[in-house]
């Protein structure tokens, strides 16, 4: 399917209205690419099918699910996790952590294992645009396709625990699952994070999500996230994302690992 610029703008506007996610301000080339990917996954052959799709709750959630770019692996960028351990070491309390846009299980499971292995305790809030992401994450199944990479990344965290102590086989031995109880302190919200009221978090994990936004939405998102940080709270972006917003409200704590801290 070939989409003109006007057709793309029209679909983005309809999706924004129906799904309450600002697709109008997604990176336009990403939006085109990803929309075609979604149409392929959902066997949408004509633009005229979009209206019916958006009015069907299950199908529209499937569209949101496919629009989200899935995390690539667990413990992506081990250097980030090592740095995060150093930054959190001084915060001697029950942490409040937010993942504003979860795209699959990897980031959350990584965080939960990281916290446990390092002796941190936290209440974790997770937002995601797609209910299907929540449903999948709650199964606690870890895709086996990245199993070796997950383990290799974990080894690089320099934690004196074994990855295998956090996973277990399913009853029929066909799947690997996160250890029982690991999701106990996690609250899930099926709502786009920009529609949330500001919170007060010690850490916000927003890695590689801003890549899909255009510059104005990127700046608005960063302003919103920083507004949800507690005093001296930390914002983690992907290692190749810069917070384009010019403000004195936060500064780099570890620029190489893209960890930023609120200043007041």
């Amino acid at each position: 399917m070939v989409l003109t610029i006007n057709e793309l703008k029209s679909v983005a506007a309809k999706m924004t209205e129906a799904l309450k996610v600002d697709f109008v301000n997604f990176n336009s080339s990403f939006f085109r690419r990803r929309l075609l990917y979604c149409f392929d996954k959902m066997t949408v052959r004509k633009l005229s099918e979009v209206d019916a799709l958006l009015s069907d709750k299950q199908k529209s959630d499937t569209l949101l699910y496919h629009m989200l770019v899935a995390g690539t692996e667990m413990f992506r960028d081990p250097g980030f996790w090592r740095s995060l351990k150093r930054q959190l070491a001084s915060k001697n309390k029950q942490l409040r952590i937010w993942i504003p846009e979860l795209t699959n299980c990897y980031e959350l499971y990584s965080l939960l294992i990281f916290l446990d292995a390092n002796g941190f305790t936290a209440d974790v809030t997770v937002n995601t645009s797609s209910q299907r992401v929540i449903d999948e994450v709650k199964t606690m199944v870890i895709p086996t396709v990245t199993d070796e990479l997950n383990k290799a990344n974990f080894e690089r965290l320099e934690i004196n625990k074994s990855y295998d102590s956090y996973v277990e086989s399913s009853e029929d031995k066909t799947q690997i699952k996160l250890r029982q109880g690991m999701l106990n302190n996690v609250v899930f919200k099926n709502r786009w994070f920009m529609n949330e009221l500001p919170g007060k978090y010690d850490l916000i994990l927003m890695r590689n999500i801003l890549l899909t936004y255009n510059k104005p939405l990127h700046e608005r998102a960063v302003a919103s996230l920083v507004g949800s940080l507690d005093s001296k709270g930390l914002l983690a972006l992907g290692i190749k994302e810069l917070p384009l917003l010019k403000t004195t409200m936060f500064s780099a704590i570890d620029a190489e690992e893209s960890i930023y801290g609120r200043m007041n």
Partner: protein
Amino acid sequence: MSDYKAVVIGGSAGSFAVVLKMLSNLKVTFDLPIIICMHRLKHIRSGLVESLNVKSCKEVIEPFDKQKIERGQIYLAPSNYHMFIEFDGSISLSTEDMNHQSRPSIDYTLSSAASTYRDKCLGIILTGANKDGAKGLKDIADKGGFTIVQDPKTADVPTMPKAALEIMKPNLILSPDQITDFLNKL
């Protein structure tokens, strides 16, 4: 300098030596942006760009998302990110699915450069171990850009240049030294 807007180069990990030699022998006055997408290990972030910078005629950088492309600058796709060229002359990065088991994917960089620069794009495919890049180079040719394929006889692993030659007819088939000479004469 020619009226090209950018040189876009793709190769697998084995093309490192070829790219290093090219960058070290380019004239310092070469002022087109050079955009390189090279297959690389996902979990090793550092080392590659530093090694290129030891001998490169100009500094090589791994761009951030939304970074503007400047004349005379050399860009290397970061580890574990796809790199796209945007219509506004910036670079965008992505963690979308791998293509040909590769992230970064050469096809993605070359195809997006083809869409952005059209007939002002100069695309080069070097030695490589899979077919990633062949379609991207064809896209550059289809949009009227200029294309060069490393002569498979000079490639350590000729799969990538051969894959390109199977689906398109490049403007030139050259050895690495000839590619550098060609660029220096632009």
